[in-house]
């Protein structure tokens, strides 16, 4: 079930320069939502900007959900100007969630930059079930971490940074690979990997991680989107396993098997 809900903004803050968090009161959507799903946000009254903005659900606590975003243009900037007590129209929850119904021993969650939010939701869900999970995050530097410094989750995360002191230096795939390298075949086949991040991360995971030996490896993708609900066919990505060479991020995804995804050629 999907809802079109006028959600009251409970709070909003800037986590890092240009990275924002907003908590919204949205009982219907919160009741239905699952980790990996997203919300299509109407960022302003009227039609300028014209389209909704698709944002992953970052957390659900009771009847409130959190959205985290980086300001990249007119729509995401507009969201920073909304005050607590105002309403925003949300369409959701949308898309297919991460697969969580398989009994395994190891759960590795790998985020790149602003790809972290859906994995936070997934991580908290696992922990809420009393299940262990390891959350990895790769960023360029401290300013790219989509969590506030006072967020208790920070201490749980294995963070790699390319150019900031205080974190392991390097790529996020390195500690992930180290953990997988310690496993034998039985361990690998008892492992699920979930990921979300820029195409560079998807490429790297496909290249260096033995994903075909894992129980499951999934990735959540992003694409420009109009309807969010499978109507316009605009958010196609090249992913195997569908009836055509393309699948829709909004309807068939955003979560896809890592091995099926064909990242665009990065130039």
């Amino acid at each position: 079930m999907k809802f079109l809900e006028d959600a009251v903004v409970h709070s909003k803050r800037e986590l890092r320069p240009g990275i924002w968090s907003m908590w919204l009161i949205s009982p219907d959507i919160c009741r239905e939502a699952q980790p990996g799903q997203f919300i299509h946000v109407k960022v302003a009254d009227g039609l300028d900007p014209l389209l909704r903005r698709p944002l992953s659900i970052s957390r659900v606590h009771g009847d409130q959900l959190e959205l985290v975003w980086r300001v990249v243009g007119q729509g995401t900037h507009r969201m920073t100007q909304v005050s607590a007590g105002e309403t925003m129209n949300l369409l959701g929850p949308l898309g297919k969630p991460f697969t969580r119904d398989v009994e395994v021993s190891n759960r590795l969650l790998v985020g790149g930059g602003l790809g972290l939010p859906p994995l936070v939701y997934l991580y908290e869900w696992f922990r809420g079930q009393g299940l262990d999970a390891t959350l990895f995050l790769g960023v360029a530097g401290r300013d790219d971490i989509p969590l506030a410094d006072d967020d208790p989750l920070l201490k749980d995360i294995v963070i790699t940074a390319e150019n900031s002191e205080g974190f392991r230096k390097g790529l996020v795939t390195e500690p992930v690979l180290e953990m997988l390298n310690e496993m034998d075949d039985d361990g690998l086949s008892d492992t699920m990997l979930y990921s979300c991040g820029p195409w560079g991360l998807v490429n790297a995971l496909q290249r260096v991680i033995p994903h075909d030996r894992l129980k499951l490896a999934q990735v959540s993708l992003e694409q420009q989107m109009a309807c969010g609900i499978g109507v316009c066919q605009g958010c196609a990505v090249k992913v195997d396993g569908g009836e055509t060479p393309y699948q829709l991020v909004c309807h068939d995804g955003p979560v896809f098997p890592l091995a099926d995804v064909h990242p665009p050629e990065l130039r």
Partner: protein
Amino acid sequence: MASSHTQDLGVSLGTLKLHNPLIAASGCYGYGVEYSDVADRNDLGGFITKSISLEPWKGNDPPRLTEVSPGLLNSIGLANMGVQRFSDEIAPQIVGGKAKAIVSVACKVMEEYEEVVARLEDVEGLDGYELNISCPNVKEGGMAFCLNPSLTEELVGRVRKRSSRWITTKLTPNMTSISEGAKASAAGGADAVSLINTLVGMAVDWKSRRPKLSTITGGYSGPPVKPVALAKVWEVWNAVDIPIIGIGGISNWKDVVEFMIVGASAVQIGTALYADPDLPGKIVSDLEDFMRSEGMNLLSELTGSLNTDGGAMVGVPK
């Protein structure tokens, strides 16, 4: 609703009668079932499905759309499930409601249009067809049937022989004289014409010097195209006698009223549905308020009521 006795929003498109003039445009309403969780299809007078072809089409390479705010540039390439699956799985779900179910048909050659319509004739309860002869985003077929009026007339005539159902043609603004396309549609036996399809447009990333769409150019839609669409509807109103369905940037009740004034008997709402899936219900309510405040009983009285005798309006626009 007490007011329904005095405010009649019904319109007539020849043999097709709608309980209000709002039709969801092809490509913006899926197959008619996707929005059912969040909006009532019967708020609409009718809806037009995504274009159906003989075989399934995979559509164009991504990226397929980009926002050129407050407009949208798309190059979907008519991705669709094909007539067989549509007839078997979808069509039975969309017929029989208050909203008329109209199927858009888009093919590469005339014989395929005939074949698709012939197969759809077997589906009970469909209310008509919109022949999409104006898609700017496919290599074969697409706009070619519309750019040449003699092809338009022949195509409509051939489909007409296959069906007694209501038929409209969807026309492109990307031609010298859209009224020639409308006249050819009427001559071929169309019951109405739908206009306008998207304008050919382009978006470029200045930094990488790359196009923002895989096909380089695409179709431009949204609020900015409304003045172009109004002018085309007005042109066609003065050229043909069959009903006109106005399309282009419609997002509120005033837009509907304006399109009807320049000659539209009904309108299609397209891109704005992406922002507000429940927009039709709001517009119906606003149109009823408008009619009450104007003391108007029949909305259809608006069609072609543009006053050109006294020159342009006087005063400040409201």
